[in-house]
């Protein structure tokens, strides 16, 4: 229990850091750290397979996507860092306070006593994925295809500069 409190607090702190840090690249790295923390939490919640996916894809691939996007749009990122850093901080300084207020409010009102039904579900992840949730597998295949076309259309085709 204490461990989870610690890790969840760390998660929140890292999220705050991601929000508050001025440099976009650093923010992307903080985001990767957020993923790593999520991975740890997942490990301790008995879900190693999901954790591995989270680590490799979210902490790895997504960070790569972010870093390449940031470097592709580097020009304005630099400008923004110099000129807008201070005004930006003013806006985000409210974030911790907002979260603190809402957190307290939630803690006071949240009805934690959820009724949790007892079921005897399938416990083997592999069986669940391959036998019970084939539709999801099909869906994954389709969305990957969509992603491929997304790359083709969004990144490969020429721009048609109308304005």
């Amino acid at each position: 229990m204490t461990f989870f409190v610690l890790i969840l607090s760390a998660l929140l702190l890292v999220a705050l850091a991601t929000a508050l840090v001025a440099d976009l690249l650093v923010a992307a790295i903080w985001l990767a750290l957020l993923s790593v923390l999520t991975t740890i939490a997942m490990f301790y919640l008995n879900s190693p397979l999901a954790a591995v996916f989270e680590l490799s894809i979210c902490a790895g691939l997504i960070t790569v996507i972010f870093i390449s996007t940031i470097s592709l749009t580097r020009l304005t990122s630099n400008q923004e860092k110099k000129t807008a850093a201070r005004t930006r901080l003013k806006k985000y300084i409210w974030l911790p306070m907002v979260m603190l207020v809402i957190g307290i409010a939630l803690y006071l009102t949240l009805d934690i006593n959820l009724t949790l039904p007892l079921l005897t579900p399938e416990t083997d992840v592999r069986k669940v994925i391959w036998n019970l949730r084939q539709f999801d597998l099909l869906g994954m295949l389709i969305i990957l295809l969509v992603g491929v076309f997304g790359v083709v259309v969004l990144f490969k085709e020429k721009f048609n500069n109308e304005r």
Partner: protein
Amino acid sequence: MNGDLNQLFGLFLLFLSLLLIAGVYLITATRNLIRILIGMEIMTKAVTLLIIAAGYVTANIALAQSIVITLIIVEVVVLLVGAGIVVGVFMLTGDISVKALKNMRG
């Protein structure tokens, strides 16, 4: 029903809703498109963990894991498309701020 598990889930609910709010705040407060994507990621992290926690407390972790794996794949594709849009906006306007997106009104 196990009281500890209940309490644990409550803990997760509390912290993860805060994380979700952080994401929403980031999306609404920023003017930078990439930061909006980061906010979106933070929100997704929150719900991912929420699903795992829900699976854990109901002893249904296998289902939760398989869902989360699918979710991660979806997340990456959607993010890719989002990044593509941001890069496109940059190529057209040379800017990645929300100001570039104020053409249409009413």
